[in-house]
């Protein structure tokens, strides 16, 4: 897998940071190098938040994402904020409920009903981050389903395993038949 610079954005409380931690864990489990970090802020709950994971088969020097190869946004506010920053070649995953800002240069956009799937199919909106992890892995091909499942189980609270595995599977399904706009 070539170097991936992954940036996830949403609102505080959506589990954006956990999603990047799970992607980093998946990379480690798959034998790759990774660096995960997040922008903290006093607005940690409710405001826009972003978290990042670098994945590479090479040693990682600088640990921050500079030119995202992948951006996901789960809220309009975070998409408006971070969308225009990414380059033409960046793959952008957005929730179906959002619309891409006019000044966004990225050409490759995938819209999937992540929040809706978490709410209605999985039955818990809090699992949206895990649905997203399933989608992201499918889009980027970080690792196999089994390894990703292991990474999820290493980081979700005990008692929520079944729910989160269901969320992950729904994520896989969502991304399977995706179309780039």
């Amino acid at each position, binding site marked *: 897998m070539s170097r991936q610079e992954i940036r996830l954005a949403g609102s505080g409380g959506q589990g954006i940071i956990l999603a990047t931690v799970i992607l980093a864990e998946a990379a480690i489990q798959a034998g790759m190098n990774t660096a995960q970090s997040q922008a903290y802020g006093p607005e940690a709950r409710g405001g826009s938040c972003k978290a990042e994971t670098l994945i590479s088969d090479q040693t990682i*020097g600088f640990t921050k994402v500079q030119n995202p190869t992948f951006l996901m946004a789960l809220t309009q506010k975070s998409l408006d904020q971070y969308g225009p920053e990414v380059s033409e070649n960046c793959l952008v995953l957005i929730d179906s409920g959002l619309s891409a800002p006019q000044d966004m240069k990225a050409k490759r956009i995938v819209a999937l009903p992540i929040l809706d799937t978490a709410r209605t199919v999985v039955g818990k909106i809090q699992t949206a981050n895990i649905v997203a992890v399933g989608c992201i892995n499918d889009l980027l091909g970080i690792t196999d389903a089994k390894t990703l499942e292991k990474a999820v189980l290493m980081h979700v609270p005990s008692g929520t395993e079944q729910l989160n595995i269901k969320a992950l599977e729904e994520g896989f399904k969502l991304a399977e038949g995706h179309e780039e706009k």
Partner: protein
Amino acid sequence: MGKVVLMQGNEACVEGALVAGMRLFAGYPITPSTEIAEISAVRLPQEGGKFIQMEDEIASMACAIGGSVAGVKSMTATSGPGFSLKQENLGYAALAEIPLVVVDVQRMGPSTGMPTSPSQGDMMMARWGTHGDHPVIALCPSSVKETYDLIIRAFNLSERYRTPVLFMMDEIIGHLREGMELPELEEVEVIDRKTVKYPEPKRLPYHIKKGKLVPEMAPFGMGQRYNMTGLIHDESGFPTNSNEEAEKLIDRLMHKVSDNYADIVKCEQVGMDDADVAIFCYGGTMRAASSAMDEARKAGIKCGIFRPITIWPFPEKELLEAAKHVKRIIVAEHNYGQMVLEVERVVKDACRIDFLGRYNGTVITPDDLLAKIREEK
């Protein structure tokens, strides 16, 4: 090869400390060091140790001192505002010769500054923050793995030299998660202080046995009664106003560190064999430097890196030698200019010195460094 795990810098700090034998953490949580307290609170009881949250940073420093005097390897962790508060008791620990580790995960200051933003603005406070002349050992990790290994070394140095060791992290490394290989525990060197086993009447607590570096410690509570003080004292541990004793004590404290420079001071030099330009950096700044060095070399610029791992005592011998073989040194640090003063003191006219400082809460990027490297003469 050991198992590779995903770990955060602050987590590696705790896990390494536990391997080194830390069994007391006394602290007061503060961003970006909070995970160290949180994880210690979970992990210490599992290892038969104790975690205590004190009412503030002054008290947590005092508590760590107390734990160590009672014979338990102790650590406290904080960030800039708390590090300021710990300075008074830090001086006490230096004078009374109490081994312990103080972690400072640096954030943007001064004062409460920008709590979540990286900085390296406490480097001079580490050296000069507490009053009076005293020796300082301070270490700076630049990866999660190095945090783990180096915190073990911090404990070892504190035990060997009976002195507080400052562990100068920054938000970049503290909050970074990356993979690290766990060492085989039986291969890890752990040093314990020399202690008195049985109470001895009339024992002089600060008497140094022939051939020894520091006085043996009698853990409080084992039956040996003695005095410990922040006043200048003689071998008896009681205060003295003797000018001769004062000079003798300060000389001894300073020399126990300076005479062991070779054991204490470590630095890393990358690509320095043929370098024309060297980046001087430490801690989290190293990560931008290593990417910048790779890019510069791709562009045909012979770039190297000089990185102190031990920041105090300052690695002056190695730096001066390195400076003789390069045309320029670029000092990159997340402050308004602190370690650059040491570089200037040591290098003098051996080569040109440029400075790249960052003090707005953002991090120095490889591109920032490349621009500096390419700057017109």
